[in-house]
C-alpha cells in the first residue's frame, strides 16, 4: 500500500506533528537484550559509561582503576565502582503483509505503528530493521539494519512501498525472518494473528534468538464486532477456502468467546517469554493508540 506524500509532509504515514512527538518517545523493553557492541542503550550490566550504577566487592583480577578510593580510605576495604553499560539494542519490525491484513485499514495501521516504533528506535540510536512477509515460502522483503535519524527516510520509504497480499501465515513469516536476522533486542510482530498454525515454535525461536517479543494484533472493526446474520458462505481472503455457516447471528457470542481466547492465548505466549501483547482496533485513531494505549501499557516512554 503506498500513500501519497504531501509536499510539506515528511512521510505519508503520519503528519510532521506526530513525527515530532514520536521523536521524543522511546521504546521501553522489560528485558535488556542488547548486543555486545557499544551503543546508547543503557544495559543493566555494569559498563563504562559515565552514569553510576552500583558498588560491589572487589575480587581478584578486577581492574583496580574502578576501585572507589574514597570508600577505601574510609573503610579500608576495596569496593568496585560500577557504571551503566551502554549497549546497542536491535529493534526488529516484522509486518504481516498477507491478504488478511488488507481489510479495513489494518495494514495501514500496521505500517503506521511500525514507522512509529522504527522512529523511536532510530532516534534513540538503536539498530532498526524491518521485514514484510506476504508470500508463503518466499523471502520476506527486508530493510537492512540501520541507525540514526538519517535512516528514517529509508524506513518510511520501505514501509510505504510494501505491497499487501499473499498467503503467508505469521508463524512461517517469523521463521523466515529469523533465518536472516542476527542480533538481540526487541521483535515487534505486527499481525492479525488469525492463523491456523501454532505460534509457540516461532515465539520460542524469537526468544532463543534473544528477542523480546512485542506482539501487536491489529484487527478491523468488523472482526471485533462482526454484524452478520442468517445463512452465509464465508470466504477466506488468503486461501479462498469457504465455510458455510447457518444462523450466523447465533454464533456471534461464540465468535467473541473464541476471539477473546485467542487474545488470551497470544498474551500468555508473549508473557511466558517476557514479552508483551496488545490488540489494536484499526478503527481507533493512531493518536489514541500511540499516545494513550501504548503509553498506558508501558510500551513506550
Amino acid at each position: 500500500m503506498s500513500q501519497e506524500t504531501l509536499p510539506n509532509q515528511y512521510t505519508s504515514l503520519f503528519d510532521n506533528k506526530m513525527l515530532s512527538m514520536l521523536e521524543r518517545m522511546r521504546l521501553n523493553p522489560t528485558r535488556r537484550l542488547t548486543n555486545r557492541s557499544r551503543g546508547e542503550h543503557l544495559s543493566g550490566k555494569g559498563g563504562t559509561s559515565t552514569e553510576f550504577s552500583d558498588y560491589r566487592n572487589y575480587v581478584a583480577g578486577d581492574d583496580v582503576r574502578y576501585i572507589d578510593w574514597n570508600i577505601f580510605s574510609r573503610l579500608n576495604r576495596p569496593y568496585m565502582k560500577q557504571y551503566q553499560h551502554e549497549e546497542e539494542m536491535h529493534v526488529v519490525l516484522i509486518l504481516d503483509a498477507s491478504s488478511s491484513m488488507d481489510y479495513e485499514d489494518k495494514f495501514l495501521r500496521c505500517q503506521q505503528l511500525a514507522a512509529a516504533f522504527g522512529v523511536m528506535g532510530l532516534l534513540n540510536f538503536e539498530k532498526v530493521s524491518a521485514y514484510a512477509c506476504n508470500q508463503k515460502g518466499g523471502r520476506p522483503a527486508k530493510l537492512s539494519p540501520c541507525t540514526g535519524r538519517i535512516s528514517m527516510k529509508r524506513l518510511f520509504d520501505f514501509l510505504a512501498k510494501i505491497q499487501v497480499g499473499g498467503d503467508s501465515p505469521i508463524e512461517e513469516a517469523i521463521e523466515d525472518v529469523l533465518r536472516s536476522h542476527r542480533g538481540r533486542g526487541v521483535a515487534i510482530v505486527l499481525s492479525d494473528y488469525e492463523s491456523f498454525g501454532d505460534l509457540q515454535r516461532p515465539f520460542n525461536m524469537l526468544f532463543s534468538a534473544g528477542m523480546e517479543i512485542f506482539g501487536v494484533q491489529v484487527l478491523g472493526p468488523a472482526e471485533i464486532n462482526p454484524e452478520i446474520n442468517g445463512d452465509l458462505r464465508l470466504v477466506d481472503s488468503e486461501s479462498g477456502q469457504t465455510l458455510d455457516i447457518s444462523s450466523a447471528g447465533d454464533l456471534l457470542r461464540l465468535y467473541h468467546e473464541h476471539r477473546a481466547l485467542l487474545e488470551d492465548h497470544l498474551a500468555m505466549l508473549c508473557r511466558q517469554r517476557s514479552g508483551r501483547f496488545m490488540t489494536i482496533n484499526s478503527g481507533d485513531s493512531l493518536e489514541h493508540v500511540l499516545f494513550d494505549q501504548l503509553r498506558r501499557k508501558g510500551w513506550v516512554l
Partner: protein
Amino acid sequence: MNFWPGFYSLQGAWYLLLLVPLVIFYFLKLKRPHKHVPSLALWSQVINDRRVNSPFQKFKRSILLLLQILLLLFLVLSLMQPYIQSGSDRAQYLPILIDCSASMAATDPDTKISRLDLARERVTELIDNLLPDQRISLVAVSSTAHRLTDFTDNQRVLKQALNGLTVDDVPSKLEDALRMTQALSRTVPIKTVLFYSDGNFPKEVSFDLPFELNYQKLPSAGSNIGITSFNARKNQSGNWDVFIRLENSPKYENPATIELKQDSQTVAKEELVLGKGDSQRIEFSINTISGSALEAVLTPGSFDSLPADNRAFLKIPSARSLLVFISPDLASYRYALSENKDLELYPEKEESAGPAEYDLIIAASETDLDKPALVKLGVGFVPEELQQYISLETKLTDVVDWNRSSALLRHVELNDVQITEQPVWAENAGVENLEGLGYEVLVHGRLGPLLLQKRNSGELEFYFLFNTDHSTMPYRVGFPIMVSNLIQLTLQEAGIAEVQASATPVLPAVEYVPEKKYQIRTPDGQQLSAESNKNGLVSGIAALHVGKYLITGEGADSAEICVSLLNPQETSLVSIDEIQFSEVPVTASQTQIDSDKPLWVEFAVIAFVLLLVEWWYFQRRPVGIPS
C-alpha cells in the same frame, strides 16, 4: 362436543406436498450469500465448537426451516377449513325465526339489553360459525312473518338484515312464520328450524310441524306494567265513562301513576300500586259533545321493561242521534223503538223523503235495503242471491237452534217461538252454499235457516227469512231484547255510544272519498300509501308501532289515527316453556344451540403470527453485538 376437528375441504391436504420443495430449497439454497472475511481461522474454531454441534444448537440453526414448515402447515390447515364438530347433525339449510313482537323490546334491569338484542347476539354467533356448505335464512316473526333474507351464506348480508331488525309493537303470531317456513321447505330440504323468542306468544299453535322446531327461549326480562285496555262508553247522563285497564307482570309489585289527557289537557290523574300479576280497571268520567282525543299515559314508579304499553289513545266521537229506517209494514219494530229518544225514525208521517244515509235499516223488501246504512235487517224475504238455495213455504215451524253468542241474539230466548213461514232448503243446498256467499246462519229452523248474517264491506246485514210479524216472536220477551241488541250493534258500528282504542297491528278502516290515494305517515317517520276502495274505505294499513298515524289525501284533511299496543299477553311478559302444536309439543331448549365452530380463522392468525416471528427472527439484531 367432539374435540377432534373435522375438515370441510380435505382436498386442501394436497398442498402439504409443498413441504418437499420447501425442505429441498431450504437445504440447497441455490444462492447462499458470500461474505469475504480476512481469515476463517476463528470461524472454523466457532463451527467446531462442541456447543455449536449440540443437538439443540443444530435445532436452533434450523429454526427458520422449522418456522417455515409450521407456517406452511398452518396455512394448509386453514385451507382445509377445519371445524370443531358440535356433535349434533349439521343442517345445510337453516331457517332462523326471530320473534320481533312488542315483548322482545323488554329490557333487563341490570344489563339494559333488550330481548331482541340478546337474540341478535346469539344469531350473530351462529352466523360467525357458518360453514361453507351451510345456508341461513332469517325470518322476522311478529303479527305476521317477514322473510329478511333468502338462504345464503353471505355473512355480510345476514348481519345487515339482522342489524336492521326492529321490534314491532304488535303481538306475536307464530303460525304465519311456520307456514312460510313450510313453503320454503318445498324448495330446499329443511330438517330443523330455529326459533328465538322470549316465549311470549299463544301457547297453542294450530299447525302440523313437518320439521323439527328448536325453540330457543331467551331469558326473561324485568318487571313490566302497562295499559291493556282503553275504552269508553256513553252513560245515561250523556257523559262518557272511560275505562283503563292496567296489568302488572308477575315478577314485582309496581307503583305507577296513570294520567288521562283530553285534547292534550290533563283531566284526571291517579296513583296506584299493582301487586304481582295484578290487573286493575280504572274508571274516569269525562264530558264531551263535539268529540275528543283521549290519551292515557302510564308513568311507572319503578323499573319498567317495556315502554310501548305505557301509552294508549282513544277518540271520542261527537254526539248525534241514530238514523233508523223502518218499513211501514213492520209495525212491531217501529213500536219497539218509538220510545227511544236517541233515535230518529224514518219514514216520518209528514214527509216521505229521508236522509241519504241511515245508521240502521229494518226493511221488509230488498229494495229498501239498497239504501246505504251501517246495519241492515231484512225481514220476511229471501235475498235474491239465495233464492236458488232457499224457498219459503207457508207452514208452521219453530226454532231448532241458534247462535247464542251472536251480538244480535244475546240474551234472546227463541224456544217455543211459532213461525208460520218456513224457509226450506232447495235440493242439494246446504249451509256451505251460504257460507260460500259470505252468509252465516244464526238461527236454524227445521228445514232451513231462519236468520242469516253477512258482513258486506262496511255494512252488517241480518236477514230474517220469515216475517217476524207472522210469528209469535213479537209477543215474546226476547223481541224487545233483540231490537235493543240491534240498536246497540248499530251504536257500536256507528261508534257513537261505545268506543274502543285501536290496537296494533292494523289501522282501523276509515272512510274517505272512493278510489283515491292517501298518504300515511307512521310514528317512526315512514311514509305509506293506500287507496280507498269503491266505498271509500281505506283499510288494511299496517300499524306496527304505537302512536299517531297522519293520513293526508282528499277528504282526509290530515286526520290523525292513533293506535296502542293494548295486549295483555305482551304486557304480562309471561313466557311459555312449551308450544302445543296439533300433534306434538315443543319444549323450550334451555341450552344454547351448539354449532360447528370453524377454525380456519384461528389457523390463519397463527400462520400470520408465525410469519411475523420468522420475519423478526430473520431480521433481528444478532445476539452478541454490543449495543
